[in-house]
């Protein structure tokens, strides 16, 4: 079944977990190039929506569509190849930053991508990470550095759809603006963002969807 126009579409989604209702009959869609920010109090199911799209969680009822294709056990693997997802805790493991970049670049789906050092250093510079970061241990990076590294990796993946879960929470104001501007200014890129940060919410180019109320703000 194919649904046209919408890049991402949540259709009458219900999600129960351990007998508790997390999401009830939620529907909305994100079109190509749109920047949509999801808001709602803790536990309202914002992160679960990203998990549903990636196939990490299955809905109790309802359908999710990505590029018109229903997300199921086969297409979820395709979705993961097309989106760049950054989790709020940025769990990027241990070892050195270089090891992580090598691991990501060696994944079969990323082999054709350009992970050369000058490009990496350029992005490090854009997001105010020192060139020395590449030789640092991941566990020694601060929360903000981890978030910026995850953003750099998501950009290196050369994908046009970004799922960003509280990616600016540990950044200072100028960096928050830099990150927000980076995504908002790219017309071709579609973003589904979870944030309560005014820098996202007050941006006129952004649409805000209240997950709790189930409607656009």
């Amino acid at each position, binding site marked *: 079944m194919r649904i046209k126009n919408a890049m991402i579409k949540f259709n009458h989604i219900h*999600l129960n*977990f*351990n007998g508790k209702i*997390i999401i009830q009959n939620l529907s909305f869609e994100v079109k190509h190039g749109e920047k949509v920010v999801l808001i709602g109090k*803790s*536990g*309202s*199911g*914002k*992160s*679960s929506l990203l*998990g549903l799209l*990636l*196939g*990490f*969680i*299955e809905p109790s009822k309802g359908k999710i569509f990505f590029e018109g294709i229903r997300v199921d*056990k*086969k297409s*979820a*693997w395709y979705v*993961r*190849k*097309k*989106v760049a*997802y950054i*989790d709020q*805790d940025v*769990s*990027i*493991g241990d070892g050195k930053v270089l090891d992580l970049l090598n691991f*990501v670049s060696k*994944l*079969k*789906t*990323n082999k054709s991508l350009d992970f050369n050092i000058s490009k990496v250093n350029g992005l490090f510079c854009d997001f105010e990470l020192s060139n020395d970061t590449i030789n640092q241990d991941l566990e020694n990076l601060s929360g903000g550095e981890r978030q910026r590294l995850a953003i750099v*990796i998501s950009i290196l*993946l050369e994908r046009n759809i970004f799922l960003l879960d509280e990616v600016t929470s540990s950044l200072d104001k100028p960096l928050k603006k830099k990150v927000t501007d980076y995504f908002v200014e790219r017309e071709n890129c579609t973003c589904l963002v979870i944030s309560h940060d005014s820098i996202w919410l007050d941006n006129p180019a952004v649409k805000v969807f209240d997950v709790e109320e189930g409607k656009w703000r």
Partner: protein
Amino acid sequence: MEIVDLSIVSLALVFLLLTLPVILSLIFDFTLIKPLFYSIIRMTIQLILIGIFLKYLFLLNNTLINLIWLMIMVTAAVFSAVRGSSIKITKIAIPCFFSFSVVTFIVILYLNIVVIPLDNIFDARYLIVLGGMLLGNSLRGNIVGISRFYKSIRNNSKKYLYVLSLGSSQYEALLPYLRESVQLALKPTLASMATMGIVALPGMMTGVILGGASPEVAIKYQIMIMIAIVVSTITSVVLTILMTLRVCFNSYGVLRQDVFITSKTNKIK
């Protein structure tokens, strides 16, 4: 030279040695006496029974009975491995049984046909003894390996899901955990190999020497059994893990939470 048999009196004298740990336990209040005696009594009864059983098994030396006994040993090893692994028995018992059986049979048959080689490849003296040594050692490796693999993925679930979100295949996402588990499973065997002959004389070598064989024969058998243990441990751990993936992960590549005996719930925001 034949081995000197131990009389019942001699065996009883061995138990006298236990006076030392008992005295130490009383002085330092180790509260060891009860578990120590429980374990020793249990071991003694088990060994007496198995001694009687093996005596008749060796006397009969019937291929079918030998194979049935080996399968019973495999089954016991599977249950011990599954019980120690914190994974539900219904999820991994069958893959584990398949992996233990296949690996043990292949390695024993290779030893009995190609390496030794025997006229009767199902001879109880070799089939049961070698089977016991292989199963005992790969059992420990499997308990460590399976537990580490699944616990590590559960404890690093965010990292695992992040790798999946990068567009990796399930194999690519699981490979670091498989590597880590196999390395850990093999660690005790590698450590014992490193000190073998210097710090400790291994059980099989001691047995062969006490049985009257020369040290040259004993070391050859010891080398053979250690290589067989390494091979069966690595192969069975890898095979067991690979065979359990289908039941322990869903079609989306996500670890099922209900595979653990004490399941932890996911936190959903």
